[in-house]
């Protein structure tokens, strides 16, 4: 018989999903934000993204080939995502060499040092971003004028959060244009609406679950709401302040794309909620009382560090053991 019998333990079927297909879906979900950003800031956006992606992939390839001497893993697209997310956290006019340095830190320090995909305790793109933020604070926080002035009014070079930190008034901010992406900020964080569309796509494709984004954003909104109550006075603030904080800075990008990074987030739904609440609360504390105007990156990195602890202590309810 011309048969070669194959034997393996069950199951004998596998879902069509693979690491690569999941990563591809994340990339698709990032496209709307990239498009909006390109409209707002012009072709510089694509240049920054391209440099970030190319250097991330190249650095991973080189490390794997010459340092680890193992099989190449760039085919699973995770380095591409790190590149895009790193670019999304940079201003559009950042010099190219800073991007390369960021990519080197993100992939080299944030990911490959720990053994590559699946082993990194921190979100690599954020490791790169925070390194750049501390090393090159000026370049990282000065944002260019939009090139789309023919479509909408121009805006100041300061991000809304920086403006508030400097003593600005929330009431003076136009929430609708923030929602649409018309504000100063890093490439990817300005377009709340586009990011939500991407998040919806990932939820529909079951790439992520709702737990982390909802926990992060919910906590932030609640936090802002409580703060607004204590501020007293203006009743409009009760909804304006939560809305402002959800739309400003990296809230959406962080909650939907950065915090949900598989490797550095907890494994159980309960754990994800705790993690999300932690990120939301720390972000708000930094925003309201910290030295930096924005705290999303730090909050995510701090909670990344807590993730192993959450995984250890937060267990799913055992089947058949009813809670009292």
């Amino acid at each position: 018989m011309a048969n070669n019998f194959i034997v393996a333990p069950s199951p004998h079927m596998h879902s069509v999903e693979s690491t690569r297909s999941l990563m591809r879906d994340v990339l698709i979900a990032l496209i709307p934000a990239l498009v909006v950003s390109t409209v707002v800031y012009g072709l510089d956006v694509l240049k920054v993204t391209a440099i970030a992606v190319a250097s991330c992939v190249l650095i991973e390839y080189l490390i794997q080939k010459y340092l680890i001497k193992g099989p190449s893993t760039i085919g699973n697209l995770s380095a591409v995502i790190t590149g895009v997310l790193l670019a999304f956290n940079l201003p559009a006019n950042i010099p190219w060499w800073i991007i390369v340095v960021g990519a080197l830190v993100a992939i080299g320090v944030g990911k490959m040092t720990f053994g590559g995909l699946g082993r990194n305790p921190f979100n690599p793109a954020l490791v790169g971003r925070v390194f750049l933020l501390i090393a090159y604070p000026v370049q990282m926080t000065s944002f260019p004028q939009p090139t789309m002035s023919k479509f909408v009014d121009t805006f100041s070079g300061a991000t809304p959060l920086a403006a508030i930190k400097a003593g600005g008034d929330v009431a003076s901010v136009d929430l609708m244009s923030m929602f649409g992406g018309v504000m100063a900020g890093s490439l990817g964080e300005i377009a709340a609406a586009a990011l939500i569309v991407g998040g919806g796509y990932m939820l529909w494709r079951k790439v992520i679950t709702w737990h982390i984004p909802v926990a992060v954003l919910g906590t932030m909104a609640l936090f802002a709401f409580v703060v607004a109550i204590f501020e007293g006075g203006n009743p409009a603030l009760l909804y304006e302040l939560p809305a402002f904080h959800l739309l400003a800075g990296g809230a959406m990008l962080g909650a939907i794309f950065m915090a949900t990074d598989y490797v550095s987030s907890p494994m159980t739904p309960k754990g994800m909620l705790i993690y999300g609440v932690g990120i939301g609360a720390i972000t708000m504390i930094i925003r309201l009382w910290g030295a930096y105007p924005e705290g999303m990156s730090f909050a995510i990195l701090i909670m990344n560090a807590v993730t192993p602890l959450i995984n250890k202590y937060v267990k799913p309810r055992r089947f058949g053991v009813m809670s009292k």
Partner: protein
Amino acid sequence: MTVLISTILTLSVLGILAAVILYFVAQKFKVEEDPRIDEVEKMFPGANCGGCGFAGCRAMAEAMVLREDISALYCPVGGAECMKSVAAYLGKVAPEKEPTVATVRCGGVCSKRAKTNAYNGTKSCAIASSLYVGESGCAYGCLGYGDCVEACAFDAIHVNPQTGIAEVDAEKCTACGACVKACPKNIIELRKKWPKNRAVYVSCVSKDKGAVTMKACKAGCIGCGKCAKVCAFGAITVENGLAYIDPQKCKLCRKCVNECPTGAIVLKGMDPLPKEPKTPAAKPATPAVAPAAKPAAEPKVAEAKAEPKVEATKNE
């Protein structure tokens, strides 16, 4: 300047305070231990292999110090020398044990044992053996996925990629027994270690009937019993269609080696006995038995039966 001084002062005070607290805590929770345990532990090889039956060298050292009678304790890795020095230090009688070596009892190399299927699951002997028979028709043979290799702390056992069977490096083997426990097929046995790594053993553990064994593997023991008949020391027993050479009784006379029709009895570290009467029963005939068909094999076994008696008496 004041900032600098206050910083230094604060830190110094904190440091001293912490040191004081640590000192008292250390005193309070100090564990009184026999200092000899530390000394004995240092004498052990420190491989923490578990070959002695304890969790590690420290646990073994504790037992050595605390027990009056240490004759039941033995570190296979350190061997007689190590045990002697420990016993001398403790003033106890050194336990003695014959040196042994791990022996892989399977001769089903690829050329002798036809592959009937391809295993596509996790390459682990424990997992594969709980699922099914293995990649050949033999339900007893070495699977070659290397659970023993994983278990070995001394790099002494490896799966030969040519044969697909685990092989022991007798020089490195410390007879800790980790591979014996790891092998789900119970193929590995700790056998008496002779000088120059000499060995005679049945390299098969198949309990199948002769015909079934033969169909699955040309190198298997078919339980014909010829070896047992020729053995002058009563070292060989045949049970469930499988011959076994008792390492305590075997004197390495090698008579059985030439008797075995399938070559299942392996000889190592020595030359085989001269085959004085060049009968078809001796070595040259062995490969000829190979074709698995029953009728071909049977007559040869029968004709071989007659000859060995002559040979045996001659040798005596």
